[in-house]
């Protein structure tokens, strides 16, 4: 039996995209000093969406100076209760404009509208709401009686959750009294630029939030700027390493949220139907463009066959295609470059002897796509079990005992997240204790909340975003003695 769905595209009418955008510095849009710009495209159609200024060294200087001025004269001296009200305003405006922002995000990023609408945007608003309340209560957060802001924060945002990752960085920074210079990802600048407009609507003082579009070079100039006090980066472990090297010997504070290769562990007593949904959500949510994705499925041998059969059946019902269609489960791969990397790693999986299965779905003619794919017969030595693919590719391994599951799960230089599926509460807590990962989900996966700290162990980075612990990344605490 097959189901045919009529197309149900979300209207683009709520979104207005300008033909070109400048840099948002000191409360105003202006072209880059060099006049150079680049084009951002819709990954589902390859159509150009807009031309965006590329910030160079003079622009970075100007943005950091604006942020410093705002920090010294307005935002730093402002009482927390007043800062809070700006953040509450921003949260409200995001709620009011959430449909527009969701459509824009799906167009620029390629993620399905049901994810941008139902996951990203509600969390973006929630993040500002949560942190707004902290702005005048920081002395109660456990960082000493009078915790102070750091100054100017340079924040480099990834392309997988463009507006949500901006919120994760901007909200706590502003709540703690810092000013920010944000560098959105090269392929997804549009919602950050829409956020600049939200700052305008909120009457946020000029210079508190500055947005510099550009590629890796812009990011490098920003984090190297001598008048930056804090660097927050989310992205690949490789770039994280180079930022850490760059900052060596400075007194800049740093937090890194990097790659992952999470184990999603299914025990034989797990509620299997729920687990199947959790596996799907773990690795195919956002096309697998998730640093905490459950990319290694560890399934107990006794149920492996059953789980795989049901998983493949479920994957065969996923709908891949137009991100703006409300029935779409799997959207577009964000860029040609990322697609090439996924293809390369998938090929290595076959080359190293794992067995590849891809869901039988039609691939649109234009745009960048990759079908949900499962590799079985994977060993721990295979590249697809070791390297972050950042795409809709699941590697399946099996285990017999809880000890073996722990050993395999921890056998990675990463340590961002992990999943556990079992009906036994004591086993959940025992496993959670053994796993060297910053976030452990039990009988769920890829769930986020502004009150819940997020961040990695080992090479997945350091520092936390969200919750009480996330504030620590933007506050001077007692001097280390």
């Amino acid at each position, binding site marked *: 039996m097959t189901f045919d769905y009529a197309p149900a595209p979300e209207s683009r009418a709520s979104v207005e995209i300008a033909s070109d955008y400048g840099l948002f510095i000191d409360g105003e849009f202006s072209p880059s000093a060099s006049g150079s710009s680049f084009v951002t495209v819709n990954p589902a159609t390859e159509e150009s969406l807009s031309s965006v200024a590329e910030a160079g060294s003079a622009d970075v200087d100007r943005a950091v100076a604006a942020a410093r001025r705002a920090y010294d004269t307005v935002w730093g001296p402002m009482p927390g209760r007043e800062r809070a009200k700006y953040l509450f305003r921003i949260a409200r405006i995001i709620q009011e404009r959430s449909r527009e922002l969701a459509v824009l995000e799906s167009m620029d990023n390629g993620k399905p509208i049901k994810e941008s609408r139902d996951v990203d945007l509600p969390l973006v608003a*929630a993040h500002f709401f949560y942190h707004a309340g902290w702005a005048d209560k920081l002395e109660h957060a*456990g960082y000493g009686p009078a915790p102070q802001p750091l100054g100017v924060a340079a924040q480099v945002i990834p392309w997988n959750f463009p507006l949500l990752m901006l919120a994760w960085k901007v909200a706590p920074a502003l709540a703690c009294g810092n000013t920010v210079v944000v560098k959105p990802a090269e392929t997804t600048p549009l919602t950050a630029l829409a956020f600049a407009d939200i700052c305008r609507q909120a009457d946020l003082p000029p210079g508190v939030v500055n947005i510099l579009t550009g590629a890796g070079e812009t990011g490098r100039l920003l984090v190297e700027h001598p008048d930056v006090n804090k660097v927050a980066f989310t992205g690949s*472990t490789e770039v*994280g*390493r*180079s930022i*850490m*090297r760059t*900052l*060596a*010997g400075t*007194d800049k504070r740093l937090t*890194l949220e*990097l790659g992952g290769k999470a184990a999603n562990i299914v025990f034989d007593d797990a509620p299997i139907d729920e687990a199947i949904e959790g596996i799907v959500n773990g690795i195919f949510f956002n096309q697998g463009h998730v640093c905490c994705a459950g990319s290694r499925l560890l399934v107990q041998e006794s149920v492996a066959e059953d789980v795989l059969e049901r998983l493949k059946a479920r994957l065969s019902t996923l709908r891949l295609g137009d991100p703006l269609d409300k029935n779409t489960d799997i959207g577009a791969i964000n860029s040609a470059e990322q697609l090439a990397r996924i293809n390369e790693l998938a090929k290595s999986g076959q080359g190293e002897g794992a067995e590849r299965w891809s869901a039988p779905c039609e691939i649109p003619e234009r745009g960048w796509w990759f079908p949900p794919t499962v590799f079985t017969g994977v060993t721990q030595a295979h590249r697809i079990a070791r390297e972050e693919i950042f795409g809709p590719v699941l590697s399946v391994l099996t285990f017999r005992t809880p000890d073996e599951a722990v050993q395999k799960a921890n056998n990675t*230089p990463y340590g961002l997240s992990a999943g556990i599926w079992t009906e036994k*509460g004591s086993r*959940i*807590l025992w496993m*959670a204790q053994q796993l060297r*990962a*910053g*976030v*452990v*989900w*039990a*009988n*769920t996966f890829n*769930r986020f*909340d502004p*009150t*819940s*700290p*997020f*961040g990695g*162990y*080992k*090479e*997945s*980075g*350091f520092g*936390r975003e969200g*919750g*009480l*612990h996330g504030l*620590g990344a933007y506050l001077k*605490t*007692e*001097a*280390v*003695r």
Partner: protein
Amino acid sequence: MTHDRIGVRKTHKLFIGGAFPRSESGRTYEVATATGDFWSNASKASRKDARNAVIAARTGFSKWSAATAYNRGQVLYRIAEVMEDRRAQFIDEVMAGEGVDEAAARQQVDAAIDRWVWYAGWTDKIAQALGTANPVAGPYFNFSIPEPSGVVACVAPQASSLLGLVSVIAPVIASGNSVVAMASTERPIPAITLAEVMATSDVPAGVVNLLTGDPAEMLPWLASHADVNAVDLTGVTDRDLAISAEREAAGTIKRVLRPGPAADWDADPGMDRLRTFVEIKTVWHPMGI
């Protein structure tokens, strides 16, 4: 005719995995008192010794991090008790090494002992001070708890040979980490005596490893070692060495504590050192019937 008794001098060795080996390199260096007199030959640890210490520390970590917080507190308090027994020896060594008078040395030793007592009391409170229950919007009990980062390599302060050393290693092991510490190069003797205290204080083998010698020789290998999780550069006085160590540490994204301004080891230590060497783990536990 009577003779003055000739004293029995001690050979000062390294402390690795609960044992006291000489440097595998066979090297020693001359340690002088503050007045410049010969005191002892200390082992000059090599990069191989540093690597052996990391292996020992990894073994020590699995046992120590799995111990209950209560048990770790008991052990840290035991360290204070055994140090108290050797108070006179420590005072003599601090006087000789740092060139301070007896009153000043006594103050340093007493503060070092008291520092263990302070951290002994911390072990079972860290999770309460740094942990949270998070009110997520959904049917989950969501909590965050601190866990030790793993193996921590420390360069101990150069001037404050005992109190400084204790002040950097105690917060590291209090939360369940294991440590490879490089003692003050010119004043290593109290560190070796402290190792003897460790060996007799129920501290599991490998939890504390103490190396004497030149940090410039060992630190680059420890900072780049893939099985070291964090580096504490407090005692690094050479700026270039600190920068290169921080760069090396980036290879495996280690946690780095940079050398700060001259520390006042007599002041209340606060929580920052404890906070630096823990990871926060957040667990989403389902709720339902």
